[in-house]
């Protein structure tokens, strides 16, 4: 019998190698497709949203005559509050016009038009500033004030001279003036911290719209989710894994938990509506209700990785603990739990991350509210986390519904913010896992 040389590949080997090469090619192309999709997403989101983080302001010196602003003469806040934003608007217009005249830029616009270039929010800004610093009355104040959405849009490329001619909110002359003022240094764009801190704004003021309320609402909800679902989920998974007898009932429970993790989140919204709002009569739109609904949703998503983490602790550790004379409880809490902790922690953070991005159940319980004020953590009327609020993903949904093109940029900016938060949470999960992982 002649022996086959190892140096010559036979037909079967060649076929097998070809099949394996094909398989690798499929895998690679799948990854490439996925990466392309991701890149397209990121490019489109960052393309529209990155500009949300820069905002156009004008440096304006506003005269603050006492006779107009403080009728009492003694800086009585209650009296000063009677002066509404309309009164301040007149002062603003005056101040801005003065700035324009002082700069020497020629323009044919009236004071009203010039004042109209400022955002409607500007009056509120200066009013709040004065009420906070009543001593400024009688002098002047130089502030950075928000420009309106169209001017801002012009500098960001959304608005052109052609579109301005057709636009009722602005005109090519205003744009020209704005350009000149920018060249003169009176108008400038700077990083938009207000995007993150301002509450939401009305349809006419996209430039003033911010994520402040949404971020705070999401934060409160995450706190509720953490405080409710973490202890319950961990306790449930410990019980199911370590203490429960292995019979048909526990099998049933296991199957049901897996199923619950797969239930569409909107069903939890309906559940929350029925139980928390209708039956328990908690406040609608509150972070408390939102948090409770999200907890229900997150519970199975924490229990499943927690159980996997507990299962992965080798039985030799438990045997060793029992052999030394530890009780079942001691062996679980002193040995099994610390070893399973990284896995449980990762499960918790990933569960929280998923909860952070959930929209559907929140829509159902009414967190679509347009909220102008920051929700307080506790008020006597609303209770703990009981004030109406909104959440980040809901805010995105909200802004995409609005007419003004300025909100497109805001919505994308909000998506970017959401993505950054999720990225940070996942990074924390990975870091904690690496740090606490122990070899056994």
């Amino acid at each position, binding site marked *: 019998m002649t022996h086959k040389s190892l140096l010559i590949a036979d037909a079967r080997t060649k076929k097998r190698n070809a099949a394996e090469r094909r398989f690798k090619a499929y895998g690679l192309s799948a990854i490439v497709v996925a990466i392309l999709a991701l890149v397209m997403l990121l490019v489109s989101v960052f393309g529209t949203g990155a500009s949300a983080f820069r905002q156009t302001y004008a440096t304006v010196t506003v005269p603050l005559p006492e006779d107009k602003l403080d009728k009492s003469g003694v800086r009585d806040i209650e009296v000063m509050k009677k002066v509404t934003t309309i009164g301040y608007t007149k002062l603003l217009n005056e101040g801005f016009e003065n700035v324009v005249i002082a700069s020497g830029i020629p323009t044919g616009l009236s004071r009203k038009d010039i004042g109209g270039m400022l955002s409607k929010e500007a009056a509120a800004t200066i009013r709040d500033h004065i009420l906070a610093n009543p001593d400024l009355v009688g002098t002047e104040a130089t502030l950075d004030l928000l420009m309106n959405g169209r001017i801002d849009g012009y500098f960001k490329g959304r608005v052109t001279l052609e579109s301005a001619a057709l636009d009722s909110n602005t005109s090519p002359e205003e744009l020209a003036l704005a350009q000149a003022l920018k060249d003169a240094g009176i108008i400038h764009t700077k990083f938009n911290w207000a995007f993150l801190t301002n509450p939401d704004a009305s349809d006419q003021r996209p430039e003033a719209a911010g994520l402040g309320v949404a971020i705070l609402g999401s934060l409160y909800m995450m706190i509720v989710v953490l405080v409710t679902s973490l202890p319950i989920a961990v306790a449930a998974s410990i019980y199911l894994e370590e203490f429960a007898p292995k019979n048909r009932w526990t099998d049933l429970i296991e199957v049901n938990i897996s199923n619950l993790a797969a239930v569409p989140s909107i069903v939890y919204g309906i559940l929350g509506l029925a139980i928390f709002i209708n039956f328990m009569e908690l406040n609608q739109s509150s972070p408390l209700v939102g948090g409770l609904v999200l907890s229900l949703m997150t519970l199975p998503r924490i229990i499943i990785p927690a159980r996997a983490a507990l299962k992965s602790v*080798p039985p030799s550790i438990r045997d*060793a603990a029992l052999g030394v004379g530890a009780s079942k409880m001691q062996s679980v809490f002193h040995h099994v739990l610390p070893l399973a902790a990284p896995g449980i922690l990762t499960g918790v953070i990933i569960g929280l991350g998923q909860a952070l991005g959930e929209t559907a159940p929140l829509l159902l319980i009414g967190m679509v509210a347009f909220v102008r004020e920051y929700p307080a953590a506790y008020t006597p009327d609303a209770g703990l986390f009981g004030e109406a609020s909104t959440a980040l993903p809901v805010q995105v949904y909200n802004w995409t519904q609005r007419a003004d093109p300025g909100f497109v940029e805001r919505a994308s900016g909000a998506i970017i913010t959401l993505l950054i938060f999720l990225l940070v949470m996942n990074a924390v999960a990975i870091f904690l896992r690496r740090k606490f992982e122990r070899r056994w």
Partner: protein
Amino acid sequence: MKDINMQNPKISAKNVQVYYGDNHAIKDVNVEIADKTVTAFIGPSGCGKSTFLRCLNRMNDTIDICRVTGEIKIDDEDIYDAKVDPVQLRAKVGMVFQKPNPFPKSIYDNVAYGPKIHGLARNKAELDEIVEKALRKAALWNEAKDRLNSPGTGLSGGQQQRLCIARAIATAPEVLLMDEPCSALDPIATAQVEELIDELRQSYSVVIVTHSMQQAARVSQKTAFFHLGNLVEYDDTTKIFTNPDDPRTESYISGRIG
């Protein structure tokens, strides 16, 4: 089977039966284990020697389908009595397992865990003393004294097993159960552990389950041969290996089938 009548046996088992569900794993075993002696349990795989060993510290309680009947007395007290707390029992009867399984903690914490949970030390100084004594007795002190806070899992296989032995003896047990303690170790580590067992028998009653007949011959004074759940022969080690009574014992130790 020859009747061994012992004066004051440390452990005495009468009519012990163990069932795993319907499987009758241990059939009517009667045996007396002497104090300050090494007793070896030998037999083919699945003969029940490990199962019987685990009855002696009630580790079989952790298995739901396992049922133990009969009487097992340590120091004349039935350990399956309803008043006996298995946790307390396991402080008195220590166990060392086949695969070294130190806790993923420091060497010090490994040894100190048992005494801590049983409240054997009133303060840190006493605990330090207990840890040092246990490590010395396990012939690990010299290698470990400069690295008490390093993780127990960083030791070599033989050292880890000696750490597990130190951990078991830290709770001042009276009986030491060892389930194939050397099967995962290389020959040198095995020899070191066997040497250690020889020293330990001066203080404890040691019961060792082993697959290696040579090990049983080297290390024990008394040997029990288990086969298919029965205790076939129990006698002095020399007798079992030079001239056993039962033909089944003869077949097993000579490496014959049947």
